[in-house]
């Protein structure tokens, strides 16, 4: 694979640029996309770089088309990806459903904006439910929630590998703040870090002579009988459950003796990290737990953190009304720890918001 970064070096840029470079470094072949704020610069930078590296791009007529062209690209054996936000993410749930049904390892970068409807073009964490369980299926997908530009870069590279290794669609869940903020990160070619990129392979267009070398490949996503569908979905679910421990990622700090554990994800976890340190400095035993994968969710790990700390409370904080909270509740059903919440839909959450909230509930 061509080395696009060369010698690894620190760079200063926006999150969207980091995403475009990461796709390039990961060896992505083609992007299909439709403009929507706040993800536009992913397309801007991809289209600037793509011709220089022999990569493809198509600006489609809408997000439905962007999603389905990505499905086609992946079926043909190419590392295809897209990026979207808000109402675009809503439209793309249809093709993402096809990707779930056919186990198409596409990668989609979601830069959340405010909702419902057109909402704002700026920021929120309101696409958690949609991205984890959108569509008319069972959420057979992998969702990484990033919090820094470095993570956008790292998890896009990892995401292409997870997708092609396990054949589930992968989502990089960022937000408008991460998209537009400028901060340094270290870019690198995966090989230089000993990361082996998974090979893409076709599901159709397999080559050889049909009838002599092989039979035809007929890809299917619709079934005549309830029992047929039941069998397929149950099998996929079992496979997903079995793979989950290999995929699940989380971050945990100061949970050994915490009285209260802050549960946050994405960019809000940066504020939580600062808040927990500040609270500790003031003698308040706060802990930090952050699911990095929202699907599959690190439920064992969160249960373990609650158990070992003996925490009396969880504080779930998010820039949405209970989307993370609902995920957490379904995953840790049966725990008796009291759940406090800080919901700030569509606006940022900073350290002092969290500190004040913790003090008010302890």
């Amino acid at each position, binding site marked *: 694979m061509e080395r696009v970064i060369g010698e690894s070096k620190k760079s200063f840029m926006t999150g969207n640029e980091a995403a475009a470079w990461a796709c390039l470094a990961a060896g992505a*072949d*083609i992007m*299909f996309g439709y403009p929507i704020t706040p993800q536009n610069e992913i397309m801007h930078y991809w289209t600037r770089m793509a011709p220089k590296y022999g990569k*493809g791009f*198509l600006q*489609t*007529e*809408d997000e*439905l*088309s*962007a*999603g*389905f*062209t*990505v*499905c*086609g*690209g992946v*079926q*043909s*054996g*190419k590392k*295809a990806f897209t990026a979207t936000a808000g109402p675009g993410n809503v439209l793309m749930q*249809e*093709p993402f*459903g*096809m990707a779930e049904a*056919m186990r198409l390892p596409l990668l989609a970068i979601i830069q959340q904006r405010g909702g419902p409807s057109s909402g704002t073009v700026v920021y929120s964490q309101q696409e958690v439910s949609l991205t984890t369980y959108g569509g008319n299926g069972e959420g057979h997908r992998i969702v990484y929630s990033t919090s820094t530009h470095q993570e956008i870069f790292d998890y896009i590279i990892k995401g292409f590998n997870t997708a092609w290794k396990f054949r589930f669609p992968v989502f990089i869940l960022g937000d408008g703040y991460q998209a537009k903020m400028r901060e340094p990160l270290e870019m690198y070619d995966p090989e230089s870090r000993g990361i082996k990129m998974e090979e893409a392979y*076709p*599901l*159709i*267009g*397999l*080559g*050889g*002579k*049909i*009838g002599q070398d092989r*039979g*035809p*490949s*007929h*890809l*299917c*996503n*619709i079934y005549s009988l309830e029992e047929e569908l039941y069998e397929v979905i149950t099998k996929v679910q079992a496979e997903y459950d079995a793979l989950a421990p290999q995929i699940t990622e989380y971050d945990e700090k100061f949970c050994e003796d915490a009285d209260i554990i802050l549960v946050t994800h994405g960019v809000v976890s940066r504020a939580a990290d600062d808040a927990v340190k500040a609270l500790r400095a003031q003698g308040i035993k706060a802990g930090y737990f952050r699911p990095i994968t929202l699907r599959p969710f690190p439920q064992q790990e969160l249960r373990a953190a609650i158990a070992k700390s003996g925490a009396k409370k969880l504080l779930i904080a998010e820039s949405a009304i209970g989307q993370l909270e609902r995920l957490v509740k379904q995953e840790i059903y049966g725990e008796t720890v009291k759940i406090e919440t800080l919901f700030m839909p569509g606006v940022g959450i900073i350290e002092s918001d969290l500190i004040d909230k913790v003090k008010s509930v302890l």
Partner: protein
Amino acid sequence: MAVQAIPKSWYLPSKPHKFCPGCGHGIVLKALGEVIDELEIQDQVIFGCDIGCSLLSWNFFACDSTQTHHGRTTPVMVGIKRSRPELVCVGYMGDGGGYSIGSQHLLNSAVRNEKVTLILVNNTNYGMTGGQMAPTTLPGQKTETSPYGRDPELTGYPTMGPEFIAQLTPDSAYVARATVSKYKQLKKYIKSALRNQMEGNGFSFVEVLSTCPTNWRTNAQQTWNFLEDEMEKYFPVGELKTPFGKGDK
């Protein structure tokens, strides 16, 4: 050359096919199969089928094939072609999938002159869902959702697909309307539509007028009469755009 009763590119385990008796799909797919054989492209073809009756063709061919969603066959074919230009992508859809729910994809892929071949079967109704009105339902035609006959005042006139696509595409596109009542012509048009893609010229589109006796509730004679006397009069058959010289009307 000996005439083969069954095209080599047909997938025999899926035969006999599942279309209703008297349905035109079998004729279209036979023509497509013979063309695939004659062009010797069985191993390069990617066959994509829409939802609706066209779905019954999903494993019709011994070619690599994929199901898609209703209306979304066009973008899936475009995605494959853009990713692997050496493949020959054939999207197969009905009038609902192409002209209604997927019309934005059809229109825009035509404008972009995407190098794919689309075959759209026009039988004037939504067959699989039980015979509802389609964009192509004729004025006055009775369907389950136009029980008193289609009233153009309320629901407009039938979509003239090839005519509007011809307006949207450059000269390198191929656009035609065929009918299952003229088999040789149908086959010729499909062949031109595939050659046009293979030669890298551009968008290739064939609408095929077809029969649906089940939902029309017609016997054999009435079925043929409706196709030849009603449909072919409303929807003119012929080549609207061909990069291969003079078309035959």
